[in-house]
């Protein structure tokens, strides 16, 4: 096992993928606890499809992909949150609507420009080859920002997640923190999407939180264990992906699924 890992890390592109992957898994797991508990799991899914659309347009216009997709996805996150709270169309229907529309637009843009090729495949299902040096720098910077904000506002996020009404009455600016969650989620998704793929990135958000909730009883332990589970699952998924030549996104999801099953069984006893 150690031999394999050493061999893997000797490839610079795998090393880059591991760095980005670990950081993204960590951020996704932390935010995931709040999102799952707030019943916003599907927002991750919706945002990844919006990100796919934005990426396709960035490619077509020859812009650096992250520079376009991060702002677009942040705006989308903002709208999803806003609309799912106020609108006549219920949240889940709205997310399905936005994600399929964004996907459709993305596919049309790609087929009119570069044509449906290996790129599309790697956007949909992820590729570890996608990370450039600049991506790694940006990812490290953004992930650290996400982590710091999460730690600093941990208690506020707990309040807003557990009971919005009480928090509002206590004078907490709930919409600011909801926005914070949305923006951090958007950044995390964009960073992770090209490696995990648009179809699979939301699993990084949902699985670790669900697994931890089966076993742990306090919010703090759920958060900590989600982070640990997420990073370990990513590493194991990466190794499996390397060993058996399977796409990394899919193998990480399958590892996460196995952990969830194990946690559910342990939780029952």
């Amino acid at each position, binding site marked *: 096992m150690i031999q394999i890992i050493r061999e893997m890390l000797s490839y610079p592109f795998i090393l880059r993928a591991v760095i980005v992957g670990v950081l993204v898994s960590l951020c996704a797991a932390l935010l995931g606890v709040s999102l799952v508990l*707030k019943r916003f799991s599907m927002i991750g899914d919706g945002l990844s499809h919006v990100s796919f659309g934005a990426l396709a347009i960035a490619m077509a216009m020859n812009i650096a992909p992250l520079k376009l997709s991060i702002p677009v996805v942040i705006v989308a996150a903002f709208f999803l949150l806003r609309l799912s709270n106020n609108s006549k169309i219920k949240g889940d229907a709205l997310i399905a609507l936005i994600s399929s529309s964004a996907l459709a637009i993305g596919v049309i843009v790609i087929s009119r420009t570069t044509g449906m090729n290996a790129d599309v495949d790697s956007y949909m299902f992820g590729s570890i080859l996608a990370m450039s040096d600049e991506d790694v720098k940006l990812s490290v910077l953004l992930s650290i920002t996400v982590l710091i904000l999460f730690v600093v506002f941990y208690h506020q996020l707990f309040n807003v997640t557990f009971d919005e009404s009480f928090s509002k009455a206590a004078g907490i600016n709930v919409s600011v923190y909801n926005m914070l969650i949305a923006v951090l989620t958007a950044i995390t998704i964009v960073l992770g999407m090209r490696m995990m793929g648009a179809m699979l990135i939301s699993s990084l958000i949902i699985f670790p939180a669900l697994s931890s909730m089966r076993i742990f009883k*306090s*919010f703090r332990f759920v958060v900590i264990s989600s982070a640990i589970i997420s990073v370990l699952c990513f590493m194991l998924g990466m190794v499996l992906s390397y060993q058996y030549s399977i796409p990394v996104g899919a193998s990480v999801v399958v590892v996460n699924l196995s952990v969830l099953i194990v946690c559910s069984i342990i939780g029952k006893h």
Partner: protein
Amino acid sequence: MSIVECKDITIEYDGRIAVDGASFSIDQGDYLCIVGENGSGKSTLVKGLMGLIKPNSGGITIDKELTQGRIGYLPQQTESQKDFPASVYEVVLSGCIKSKGFRPFYNAEEKQRAKDNLKRFQIYDLRHKSYRELSGGQQQRVLLARALCATDALLVLDEPVTGLDPMVTAELYDTIQELNTRDHVTIIMVSHDVRMAIKSANKIMQMGQKVLFFGNTKEYINTPYAKALLGGEQG
């Protein structure tokens, strides 16, 4: 001394007028019960008081000492709280959120306040348990303890006994009554239960979009609302 003053407030909710021109004032130490049928605007009125919904017209003046942060609120439970993984201690401590401000951690005094409130409601032994594993009555005690971490002046409760069995309901009412009489906490409670309201509150408000009655409990007993609800017993 009046701590909450409402002048002619009207609140629209879900596209219809839920509260229509309500005017009243609440004094320090009052125990006010807001009663009325489903959809009579009780909860909406309270949400307006708490600043959760903005009134369409009219004015709410809340004593400066109490504005935002010094009001303890016990909202109706939400769906997501039923499987929420949080320890009892975490939930109660989260009531100190306002005094914590932008400090990233709670300080010793806030932790002590949480512990005192755990003891006050006899849930100290449950503090490491998960909120989702508690019974309905225990959960309400936890939320009461949390609310009292935020304030010891004004407590606002929105149908706190929904879904509790009669024994637990009676106990919870006793606890709330004690907070009012012994600790001088001003109470505003939305309730279905007119009998209980008459028994424990000193002021009653009957809602039906408009404020149909607002005044002392003694006067309320002689209104047609009370007579209709209580049958012949009191009359």
